[in-house]
């Protein structure tokens, strides 16, 4: 068993808006182990990004606030950590990659300068050393002629190059944890494969722990070691990738429908499957299991009681009455 590097315990991040309290992240519980890639999967608006921002303490307050839970990293609880200490952790220990590199890079500086700034912010390196390091990093993420590329402005690069530059920047301080928030959404399919390759290599060469946020089940099988499926601010299932994809007997109904939505190569041309209904309002969530209004296998108990975590096999937890003691009884 690998050691745990980051553990999120009962995390609750709420947004207090004029229309009511939005429970964007509600009682989320997971662990990230050293050198593994944990995928956080779910539809849009299910709280994946807010979970990531909560870890870095970057939830805008007001209106957002972490109302409960703990985030333990290296013996520190990041929820109650001092802002100055938090700033040191950000970037140096835990770095984040954003979805759209176009808007995540400062348009008025060259990418070389931005990486250099990042390096100098967290280390005592001279400008020349930092510059050399920046070029090495650009080479590591597979940018051709990194010397020249360092003097380009973000708008002069292609989408894939920008995303790589962003990855190079987040790697600059050799973080132990990398949070990637849908890093492949804004790029096309061929680049997507290349970027996944980069992550794969990083995991092996740097022993980096990845928290990979995505909505594509396809990517999960490609890169993930373990998966946490999120729905409406809650985790509904955590399992290893192989377990989740090959052992459908104990799957959460939501996970099964997510997988069904994938277009397959072998399939005949049919309409793509979709999950009926929409994500429930997080201001006024349904009672019991949040998924029951859209669930094909919903029972009476699902409407009344929140499903408890059920350990179906080792390391595989499902929050569903199909497998809970109470649900089985009825």
């Amino acid at each position, binding site marked *: 068993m690998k050691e745990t590097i980051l553990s999120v315990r009962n995390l609750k991040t709420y947004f207090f808006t004029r229309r009511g309290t939005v429970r964007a992240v509600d009682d989320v519980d997971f662990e990230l182990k050293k050198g593994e890639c944990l995928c956080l999967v779910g539809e849009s608006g299910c709280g994946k990004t807010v979970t990531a921002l909560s870890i*870095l303490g*970057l939830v805008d307050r*007001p209106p957002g606030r972490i109302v409960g839970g703990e985030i333990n990293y290296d013996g520190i609880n990041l929820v109650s950590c001092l802002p100055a200490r938090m*700033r*040191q*952790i*950000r*970037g*140096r220990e835990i*770095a*984040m990659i*954003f*979805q*759209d590199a176009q*808007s*995540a*890079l*400062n*348009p*008025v*500086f*060259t990418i070389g*300068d931005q990486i250099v*700034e*990042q390096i*100098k*912010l*967290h280390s*005592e*390196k*001279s*400008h020349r050393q930092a510059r050399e390091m920046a070029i090495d990093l650009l080479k590591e993420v597979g940018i051709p002629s990194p010397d020249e590329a360092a003097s380009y*402005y973000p708008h002069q690069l292609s989408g894939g190059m920008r995303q790589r530059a*962003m990855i190079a*920047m*987040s790697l600059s*301080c050799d973080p132990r944890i990398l949070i990637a928030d849908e890093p492949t959404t804004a790029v096309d399919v061929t680049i997507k494969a290349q970027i996944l390759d980069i992550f794969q290599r990083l995991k092996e060469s740097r022993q980096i722990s990845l928290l990979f946020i995505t909505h594509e089940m396809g990517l999960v099988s490609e890169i993930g070691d373990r998966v946490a499926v999120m729905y409406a601010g809650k985790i509904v299932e955590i399992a290893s990738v192989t377990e989740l994809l090959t052992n459908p007997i104990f799957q959460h109904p939501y996970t099964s429908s997510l997988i069904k939505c994938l277009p397959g190569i072998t399939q005949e041309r049919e309409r793509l499957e979709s999950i009926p209904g929409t994500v429930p309002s997080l201001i006024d969530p349904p009672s019991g299991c949040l998924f029951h209004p859209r669930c094909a296998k919903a029972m009476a108990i699902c409407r009344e009681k929140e499903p408890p975590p059920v350990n179906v096999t080792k390391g595989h937890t499902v929050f569903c009455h199909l497998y809970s003691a109470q649900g089985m009884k009825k």
Partner: protein
Amino acid sequence: MTKRFGIRNLALILPALLIGLTLLLDIFVIETIVEPLVYLYIALGGIFIIYVISPLYASRRLVNYYWQRVKRNRLAVAGLGFILFLILLAIIGPFLTADPTAVSFEEKNIPPVGFTLKESIYELETGQFITRTATGDWQHPLGTDNKGRDLLAMIISGAGVSLQVGLLATGIALALGTLIGVISAYFGGKTDNILMRFTDIMMTFPFFLLLVLIVFIFGANLAIIVLVIGLTGWTGTARLIRSETLSLRTREFIMAAKALGASDGRVVLTHLVPNVISLIIVIATLSIPGVIVAEAALSFIGLGDPAVTSWGMVLRAGQQTLDTAWWVAVAPGVMLFLTVLAFNFVGDGLRDAFDPRSSL
């Protein structure tokens, strides 16, 4: 603290040192005449190096690109030429011309080169009106006023005053306005509310009244006039910069900078301010003429620094002799007109060049 000692740090430390030194000189060495304006020059020079010179130098390619765009606007280039000419005139001119304050009644009301003036004057000794004919010569190319002061020398001295006031007061106003605007937008909430309501109050405050009051208390001094114009003129800038920053701060690169460990101060100074620099440059060129005219107006009504010859002062002298020595009022008037026009052309040209939507 031996790490990174770049041009930015140098630009921060050097002015601070210089100001300290000047201050010491001012306090302990009596008899030295350190003009208060010197402090402003040093401080603003530092800011100028950090935020204008060093980024321009770092991105010569981009500067070249914008220069190509500005160059296509003939009026802007002409305006820039005139401003450079004016700056040279203000720096070199005083060494080449006579003392602008030297009075000589034998040489009063001499017209510019190529003009002749016939005026009948009452002669005290004889008690008769005689007709005096004065022809302009190259000794006083622009003629003299009713006290025999050389107009060219006065215009050159006035150019220096106008440029100093224009640049320094605008510099103060922009530095303040930018800082307040960016901070207000970035922190939002209560900070925004307090700063913006303060801006509103400053906007409604009658600046002329304040100036009259301060000139009455401290006496008319160029440094005080510059400070008052600068410290009251930042409100419009603050609003413009704030609205620009409001859209910038929701951009993801601000969040990314924070996610990689940048502090609030760092985000404001190295990520937000450089992104509004193009707006600041345009505001600067468009607000300098306003300041120049404000100073001229103050001098015209007699609230200017009496120790320096400014265009407004010459204009005032000329206004009294408009029926005979018309050129005395015309010369500073034309200069004011051209200067304001030149700055406006340059400002327009820069705005068009910075606008990515324009197809220049």
